[in-house]
Every structure is written in C-alpha cells, then in structure tokens.
C-alpha cells in the first residue's frame, strides 16, 4: 500500500482523535476535581448533538457556531445537576455514585429515544464533502475544522485553569480538598462550576463530532466507554493526558483499521488500554498515587 495512504489515515485519525480528546477532557476535569466518575458523559454528548441539530434546523446554525450556545446550555445543565443531584453523593461510597450516574445515563438515553426517535440524524453543512489536497494527501475539511475548534476549546480551558482566579481555586480544590476549605474557598460552588465546565466541554465536542458522524440516542454508552478508555490511557485527572490519549486512540483506530481489519479497528484501542493498565496503570501522563 502506498505511503500516502498511511499518512492520510494517520492524519485523519489524529484530527478525529483531537475531538475525542476534547470529549474526554470534560470527563477528566470532572473526575480530577469532583472525584465523581460521570457515567452519563456520552449520553450528555448525544443530548448536545441533538440540541445542535435543533439549532441547525430552526436557525440554520453551523455546528461550529452552535457549540457556543450548546456549550453554555450544557454548562448550566451540568452546574444544576451537580448542585441538586450529585452534591449529596460526594461523600457517599463510590458504588452509590456509580448507580446515580448510570441512572442519569439511562434516563437521558430513553428521553432522547422518546423525543427524537431511534433514527440516525445529522446536519448537512455546505463544506461537508470538501477536502484539501496536499500532493497525494487528502484531508477532509470538516475534520480539520472540528480539530481546530477542539484545539481552541482545549487551549481556552488550559488558560482558564492557569490564569484565572476561579481556575486556580478549582485546581486548589483538586490538589487539597481540606486545605481549600480551610482557606475559605466555597468548595460546593467550585465543584458545581467544574461539573459545568466538564459538561460544556462535552457539549462543544458533541457539536464538532456532529460534523463527522450521524447521531442516534443509543450511541451514548459507546461514547462514554470511549471517553473512559481515553482518560485511563491518558491518566485520570490529567488534562494534557486526555488530549494526547485522544490523539493516540484516534490514530490507532485509523491505522489499526488499515493494517489489521477495518471491522476490528476498536480491537487496537482496547489493546492499548490493556498495555497501559499492565505497564503504566497511572496512565501515560498521570501521577502515581
């Protein structure tokens, strides 16, 4: 097979992987600070994708533009979810948190089935079939746009955590929960904001992913699993790790499909997960416990 096909596949996988990375970033942010694993992550993303479809059909909004209102909406939803439902479970055993989030996921999937039906939906943009050609390498335009948007959102998130007071306070909460309380930080409020930020991330990722794939309500659990794999491979709670791992998974899927068997491309992803769990259980960029 010519070299340009491998380059094409690698590039395509990397671009998709960046969007996967942003999706997993939301999960990593929430776990890193609130220490609650969001088992409804993928379902929240499919909900965001449906909102983007509604905005596209009602106002003709491009999903890349719709990611701002959708992100804001998901922030509010995540904030309220944390304040009302999850907060009482923070100090409870992990299995009760697990049950709660699984229940939220089931409700979301069935609500989406009820409202939108089971059929696949998508948004058609004018540039959907366009591509760039660099010699023999052909790059899908929507993937480039989606990846650039993912990078921009991830950059904004890193800047928020590094340079803003709220961001620093959230990092303080993540580093030392008791210390944060002692110095007078409103931890409950910061947890809710963090959950909102994580949800906004997944909302934005959903809008970008809508350019690449069709959406059905039953896809949610698959995306939750994918986000988990990315976060575990990257390192639980590591933001850079999530992004790097997303890239790695995207490229692995693409090359795995090309080199092994297209219908078994997920196998390569799970192989990486197993290798990481065996030889570096804290993840590629995670800290040792």
């Amino acid at each position, binding site marked *: *097979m*010519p070299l340009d*096909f491998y380059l*094409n*596949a690698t590039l*395509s*996988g990397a671009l*998709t992987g960046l969007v996967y990375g942003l999706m997993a970033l939301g999960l990593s942010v929430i776990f890193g600070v609130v220490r609650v694993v969001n088992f409804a992550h993928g379902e929240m993303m499919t909900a965001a994708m449906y909102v983007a479809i509604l905005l596209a059909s009602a106002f003709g909004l491009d999903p890349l533009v719709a990611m701002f209102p959708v992100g804001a909406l998901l922030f509010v939803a995540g904030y309220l979810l944390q304040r009302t439902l999850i907060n009482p479970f923070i100090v409870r055993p992990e299995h009760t948190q697990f049950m709660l989030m699984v229940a939220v996921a089931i409700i979301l999937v069935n609500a989406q089935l009820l409202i939108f*039906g*089971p*059929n*696949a939906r998508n948004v058609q943009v004018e540039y*959907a*079939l*366009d*591509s760039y*050609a660099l010699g023999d390498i*052909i790059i*899908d335009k929507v993937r480039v746009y989606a990846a650039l948007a993912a990078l921009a959102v991830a950059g904004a998130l890193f800047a928020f955590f590094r340079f803003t007071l709220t961001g620093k306070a959230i990092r303080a909460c993540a580093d030392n929960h008791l210390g944060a309380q002692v110095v007078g930080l409103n931890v409950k409020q910061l947890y809710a904001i963090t959950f909102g930020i994580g949800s906004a991330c997944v909302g934005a990722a959903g809008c970008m992913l809508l350019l*690449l*794939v*069709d959406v*059905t309500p039953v*896809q949610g659990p698959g995306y939750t699993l994918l986000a988990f794999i990315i976060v575990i491979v990257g390192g639980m709670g590591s933001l850079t790790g999530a992004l790097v791992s997303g890239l790695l998974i995207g490229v692995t*899927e*693409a090359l795995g*499909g*090309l080199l092994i*068997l*297209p*219908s078994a*491309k997920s196998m390569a992803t799970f192989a990486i997960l197993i290798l990481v769990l065996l030889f570096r259980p804290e993840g590629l960029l995670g800290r040792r416990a």
Partner: protein
Amino acid sequence: MKNPATGRMRSRRRILKAAAASAALTSIGFPAIVRGQSALNVGVLLPVSGTQAFIGQSCKRGADIASEVLGALGYKVPLKLMHADTETNVDVARSRAEKLINDGAHVLVGPFDSGAAAAIAQVAEQKGVPFVINIAAAPQITEQGYKYVFRNFPTAPELVRNGLALIGDLFRATNTVPRTAVFMHVNDTFGQAMRKGIGFLLPKLDFLPFKVVDTISYDPAARDLSVEVAKAKATNADFMLLVSRLNDAILLRREIVKQRWNMMGIVSPGSPGMYEEQYYKTLGPLSNYPISNVPWYNPKAELTAIVDKAFTKRFPKDRLMFHALNVGYTFESILIAADAFRRAKSTDANALTQAIRETDIKSRMMLGGPIKFSAKGQVDGNLSACVQNLNQRPTVVLPAASAEARPVFPWPHYKS
C-alpha cells in the same frame, strides 16, 4: 330473584338450565360459526426502529395496503394485522415473535433481516406457527428442515447468481471491461452469506472479466467508514462490488467523494441501501449512478397497477418506485397468508401450514415465476433487475426488455 326486564321470577334451577344450555351451544354450535367468521391474525415483524428503521418502515407500507389490495383481488378474508417492531435486533425479534404468538397471531410475516429471520424461524418451529419470510437471503434459514418456515425471496446464492449474471450483461451493454473490483460488505448474517455466495460463484463465472483484488468487511452500524474507504481506494480497483445496508451505503458514498476516489462505479450484486428513498433524500445528486442488481417488481404486471393505486391512495406524497422491493415482497407474503387462509378455511396452524405449502399464485407483482414452495419451503425462480439511480430515482436499465433507460457505466466524475 326477579328479572328486571320481564318481571318474572328467576329460580336457581332455571338459571342453571340456561347456563347449561349456553355452555352446550358454545361447545357445539358457536365455535363453527366463530371459526368461520374469525379473522386471520397476521403478526407482522419488521425493524421499524434502529439502524434498519427506514427500510422496515418502507416494508410496513406493504402491510398497510394489503387489506385494500386483497379486497381488490377478490379475497374476502378478514385479516387482522398485528405489528411488532424488531428494533433491528435479533434478540428483540425473537421475543416479539413469541409475544405475537402468545397474543394470538395465526401466522407470522417479516422480518427484513436474515439474523432476525433465523431467530423467528426457531420460535415458529417451536410453537408450530407458520412463518412467511418477506425479505431475508441467508440460505441456511430454509436448509434446517423446518416445517413451518416459508420464504418468498431469493437465497444469497440465487441473489449473487442473478446479480453477477446481470453484471456481465451490464459490461456487454456498456462495452466496458473492468479488470479489478474491490468487494466491500457488511459483516452481519446477510453480508456473510453474500460473501460466501460470491466467493463460491465468482471463480466459476468465466464470462466476467474482473477479479476481486481485496475484500473488506465492516460493521453495518459503523459511525465512520473513512478507514474502510481508504483501504478500498488503495487497491486501485476499477469498481466497487458492494453488499450494504442503508446508513452505511450513504456513509460510503460520502466518503468516496471526500477521498476524491474516481472509479468506474459501485455495483451491488443484490443488497439493499442504494435504491432506498432515504439514499436519494440524503445524498441528492450524489445518489446518482450506483447500480443495484436486485429482485424488483414487474412494472407491467396487473397486480403492480393495483398495488400502485392503493399505495398512492394511502401515501399520496410518496411513490411506489422508492419502496418497490420492500412493499412488493411484504405485500406478497401477506398475500400468501391470505390465500392459504382462504383455501384452508381455518386459522388452525397445521391447516394453514399445509395450505401455504400448496400455494400456487401465478399472478404476482415481483419479477419471477409463480409463487410455489419447494419441499424446503423456498420459492425458486425469483428474478433480479439491474436498477440504476438516474435522476435521483431507481431506474430499470437491464434486462433490455423491461429497461426504462440505458445504463451509465462508468459513472461520470462526481464534480460533473
């Protein structure tokens, strides 16, 4: 006790006598009357949701118009259709079939999927209820020695044989000689059966000038087929031999354009997807030129005209041509059940099964010989047509006798 209507006293003995008399009537006289007038409960199993939802809903239209068409054909048999959604899931199909039988279905019809058909067939055999398959091609379904399972649809080897023969006709009609093909197929039960059929038959058909340079299977529920298309493109094949479903066929066409792959065309040797209404709606002008060699309706048949009339009346905004295969075979499966019921004059499972086995319907809608079941419960002799997407509608281009237009192969560059 006093009867409020007559004012006469009702004694316990009189009430007991009346009860005994009514019980005797019920056990002797009434059942014959009830049996004579009772409706045939037809359990219709289709994937009206899930990844095959559009095709399932298309098939359902064939069931929706069945009563009216049967009335026009002079079948004065009362039918009660009991619809069930298989959700494009084999396990759901099995449980829905069981539920339909428990709810009183006398015969099962459906389910547009080989995997689901195999599961329902097991239930039908176990419960002793006749099952008429509308669309499902895996050959093993009618190779199990089942007594209650019947199929009026070509098996995968028949589909492939008819489809490949039409590919030879296509090359001759267009004076083309492609040397290589890449074979892409879904990896579900149907796709695997088609793969086996092609692998077995293709080497024996020396009139076909091409060889398959690579075979690529994929998940019909895949979200992204970019890798699969990249791999297919890398083979540099002259054309694509495709066994698809609907959503994946749409994804593939988009990805071929995105990856700027210019080949001679896509030809299906007998699978759904590219002639479905949703394919045209989603892809618009890009839906043009793929070719499907599939069982099709006879546009000149008398029954087709009756079905078309009923379809247009029931679905005025739609056109039969976009649902031809699905509506045709689903309607014919209900016709088989109704015809058997008329002859059996009973809803008894064994009587109905025997009547279905003796079916001989000569006037039909789909291309092929009469509907007559072999000892295995299979209708042999269903034929295919070469259907090409032209002007965003399915158009018969071969065989020449029933062609509506000339075939276009190779297809023009997508930019033009």
